[in-house]
């Protein structure tokens, strides 16, 4: 089977492997179940963080992201990744370098110092868009891979910002009222629910989480409140940084503002893992700051 | 890249209703472009006999621009379409006689596209500058 599988160089980023390893474990297994092989991208680094690096020196950001791209080019493979922040860095720098000769020449001058050259031969994909793409996986195949439907659970979707926006550069179209992630959630048997201002940012991006935590959390708190308003059992996203903000953020919000939320936060790959029959232990869900148990009770 | 000081000789044969009007509009809007192109006005690009263009190259032209209305916009229904077919064939003739077919260009600029006319002018001059003087130049005269 694996011979006919789609193969990608798996770009891990930082937060998934180093804070939520369950996402990494889930991604490799769940994607294999639907015909995708994720192969190690040896020696990859931080994408680097678009907020932190882009804010202080865009040219360093270009060069560092280009290095990661070259690693994939050397494998003669496209990149698949699981984080919106990584997507912004890796996809967007790839896009810019492909379309701007001046920028590419500048980057290559720096890469020459470490015997590398960016050629623009690799494409970059978020695993979630590969799941949705019927030419690769598609909602139907995804649904067929489900062993334990998440029936009876209400799940809010958080799209995050850096996957689909800015819309004019990306290829996702509608960034005001998208529904494709809801389709991905529905494929697992869960009920996707709509809530107010669903496209709002988690609050963490652009270095704001590090710069002014209370400010970032206030945005997060607004989103969590909007989700609670319609009653959800969990929120799912495709960005470990958003996950960190929602998950650890709930503890921080309680500590700083005295407001309590209890919404389990699951990366879509964790959700998919559960639906495909992985156990909570196999996903290290105990590492989550917000107890996932109430959600598990609904579905198990 | 040719000598910076070299001034190419480029001739534009353009239709009265769209491209000539568009060029006038560029003037009204004071859109600045390189001064290397000389225009001849015809009523329609359909009037342009391919022999005119061969004559221009024979005379040593470095480039020829033919510009008319957008398809479907021709004042005479389909003159521009016929011109485009002729230019397409002519390009293969140019290649056969060893002339870079980029020296002949056909564009479609409407009466409302002054800015586009400026872009076309700039672009044509740039292309011809990159190609350098026509190899036929020495046979002229």
């Amino acid at each position, binding site marked *: 089977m694996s011979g006919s599988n789609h193969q990608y160089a798996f770009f891990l980023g930082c937060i998934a492997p180093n804070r939520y390893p369950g996402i990494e474990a889930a991604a490799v297994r769940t994607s294999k179940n639907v015909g995708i092989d994720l192969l190690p991208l040896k020696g990859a680094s931080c994408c680097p963080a678009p907020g932190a690096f882009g804010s202080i020196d865009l040219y360093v950001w270009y060069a560092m992201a280009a290095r990661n791209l070259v690693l994939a080019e050397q494998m003669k493979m496209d990149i698949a990744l699981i984080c919106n922040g990584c997507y912004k860095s890796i996809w967007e720098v790839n896009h810019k370098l492909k379309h701007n000769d001046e920028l590419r020449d500048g980057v290559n001058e720096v890469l020459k110092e470490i015997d590398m050259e960016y050629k623009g031969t690799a494409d970059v994909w978020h695993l979630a868009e590969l799941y949705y793409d019927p030419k690769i996986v598609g909602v139907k195949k995804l649904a067929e891979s489900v062993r334990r439907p998440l029936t009876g659970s209400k799940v809010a979707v958080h799209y995050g910002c850096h996957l689909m926006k800015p819309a004019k550069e990306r290829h996702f179209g*509608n960034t005001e*009222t998208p529904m494709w992630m809801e389709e991905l959630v529905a494929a697992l048997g869960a009920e996707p629910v709509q809530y107010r201002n669903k496209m709002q940012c988690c609050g963490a991006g652009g270095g704001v989480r590090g710069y002014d935590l209370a400010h970032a959390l206030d945005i997060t708190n607004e989103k969590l409140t909007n989700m609670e308003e319609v009653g959800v059992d969990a929120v799912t996203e495709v960005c470990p940084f958003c996950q960190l903000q929602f998950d650890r953020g709930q503890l921080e919000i309680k500590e700083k503002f005295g407001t309590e939320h209890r919404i389990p936060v699951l990366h879509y790959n964790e959700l998919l893992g559960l639906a495909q029959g992985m156990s909570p232990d196999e996903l290290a869900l105990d590492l989550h700051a917000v107890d996932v148990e109430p959600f598990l009770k609904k579905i198990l | 890249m040719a000598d910076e000081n070299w001034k190419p*000789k480029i001739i534009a044969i353009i239709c009265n209703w769209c491209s000539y009007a568009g060029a006038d509009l560029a003037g009204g809007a*004071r859109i600045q472009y390189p001064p290397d192109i000389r225009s001849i006005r015809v*009523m329609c690009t*359909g009037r342009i006999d391919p022999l*005119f263009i061969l004559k221009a190259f024979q005379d040593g032209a470095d480039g020829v621009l033919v510009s008319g209305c957008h398809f479907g916009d021709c004042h005479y229904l389909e003159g521009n379409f016929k*011109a485009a077919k002729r230019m397409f064939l002519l390009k293969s003739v140019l290649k056969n006689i060893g002339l870079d077919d980029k020296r002949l260009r056909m564009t479609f600029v409407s009466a409302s596209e002054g800015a586009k006319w400026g872009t076309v002018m700039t672009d044509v001059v740039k292309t011809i500058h990159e190609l350098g003087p026509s190899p036929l130049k020495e046979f002229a005269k």
Partner: protein
Amino acid sequence: MAEVKKNEEPRIGVFVCHCGTNIAGSIDVEAVKEYAKTLPNVIVADDYQYMCSTPGQNKIAEAIKEQNLTGIVVAACSPRLHEPTFRNATKTGGLNPFRFEMANIREQNSWVHMHQPEEATAKAKDAVRIAVAKASLLEDLVPKSVPVEKTAMVVGGGVGGMQAALDLANAGIKTYLVEKSPTIGGRMSQLDKTFPTLDCSQCILTPKMVDVYRNETIELLTYTEVEAVEGYIGNFDVTLRKKARGVLTPKEAEARGIVGGGCTGCGDCANVCPVIKPNPFELGMAPRKAIYIYHPQVSPLIYTVDFDACVKCGLCVESCGDKKAVDLEATDEFMTVKIGTIILALGYDIFPIEKKLEWGYKNYDNVITSLEFERLICASGPTGGHLVRPSDGETPKRVAFVLCAGSRDSTGVGKPYCSRFCCMYSLKHAHQIIEKIPGAVPYIFYMDIRSFGKQYEEFYYRIQNEGAKFIRGRVASITEDPVTKNLHVNAEDTLLGRPVDMEVDMVVLAAAIQPTAETEKTRRLFGVSCSQDGWLLEAHPKLNPCGTTTAGVYLAGVCQGPKDIPDTVAQAEGAASAASIPIHRGQVELEPYFAQCIEEKCAGCGLCVNQCPYSALSLVEKNGRTVMQVTEAKCKGCGTCGGFCPGGAIWMQHFATPQIVAQIDAFLLGGEE
């Protein structure tokens, strides 16, 4: 039959215009003049501040007489501007006006190379040399005079088209008024009141509709579309498609021998019709039957069958009885009419504002468009003039108006231009809810209030005084409360510098306007250009705003660009006046750029015949040989045949092969090194 006219030795006069500093500012006019003197055939060269002035023109006429000139070159602005002027001057000097050639050294030189005087001067010299080469080979030509059909046509029966048709008819010109929908009246008939006078739209429009219907000089053709157009100014052949209406007018009934029959507009048919469809006139907010009229004031008052919806049950036929007006087997009919001049008054559509997803139109019940507001606030509308929330039928108290909804938008989803009347009608809407709903507050989200017309700024003051609230900020997004269906309008009050979250009961989007779906097809039929935004292109934005580049075709109303009612009517009257001129003169002169066959070169191959888009060419037998012959009245002078003839046997008057080749040679072989 043309032959290469052996000119006597050419004697050319060259005149270089300064155009104040427009030309002289970046071109060395003196140098160009001196250069001209060195050119072959040039007898005299002169310059003048403004060649188009009377003294300038006199110079030309005098030089022709004094120097016995055979050709004139003026280096000045674009021939599209002043060629007629200088042709006249040439004629005044006693020379055939077609012995004049213009070198464009302003629009295509001094204005576009303002900072390169040396290059601009060199280019001007080349332009003069090219023009002299052509002028040396120019020949006498005589314009062809053709009679003008004393009939006009107006396409589009909105207020602009109606006005134009009335003006033409009242000037004694038989006029066809062609309208695609079953009634005239257009957009204006959908409006409740008009700004700034607040008079009732229907009240001022219906008398005009009746005037049109009653006017014997107007032939009103509703439910009719233009199918094909042939010919040229004075002699258009327009083919019309009379769409199958399924209902006979009294006249049509009489023609079929049904005495006293035909539709009287009684409506018995609609009463029995079992098929219900949304009424497009009410923007789908009210029903109509498969046999219908838009509204009670339609003109003509004749019902129409929607054959896409009709189930042909025959109940209507039965109910119509002896009038026998309903014909369910009707098919489209075609007619061709001869027309002298044509006015296009094609109107506009509303931009599909649901494409701006952030405002939730069609997603949130209580977000409506301004045109829907007009119907809802109109006493004859679907709610009898009671403005209600679509979600629950409640009367809204807080209403937000979103201006520039899709206008002044360069994202590609939306229109870059100002739609020009949204500010004013939104002010009017604000007035209407204050007047009709006690305690209601309109909130107007605007970027600029463009109240440019007569009494418009005063109207703005009035609405402000009546209590409308103005928030200077473009609406960023609208969200809906899922329970109350109230709307949260998010924007920045840019004057306060604070974000606004305003909860309202209803939002009205002042959606941008765009050319109608049929405009593109129609303009191509008539050979009219459009600008990049799709609006039809006038011949000159300032000096010929009603004309087009196709002689005999004129523009009225919004199809030329956004306009309010006063401007539309004014342009319609202008277009009617322009369109009546050729008809009253009775004849027009066609530029004599005809193709001619050089018979001794013609091999009779006939390849050119298929090239001609106007079927102006044919093969004939002459002196035992097959040669091509041109029907001058059909030839429009494009030269497509001349560009194709393998034997060089076609002589394009004024654009003849030797003339063009002389221009090419003059540029490439003749210059200074």
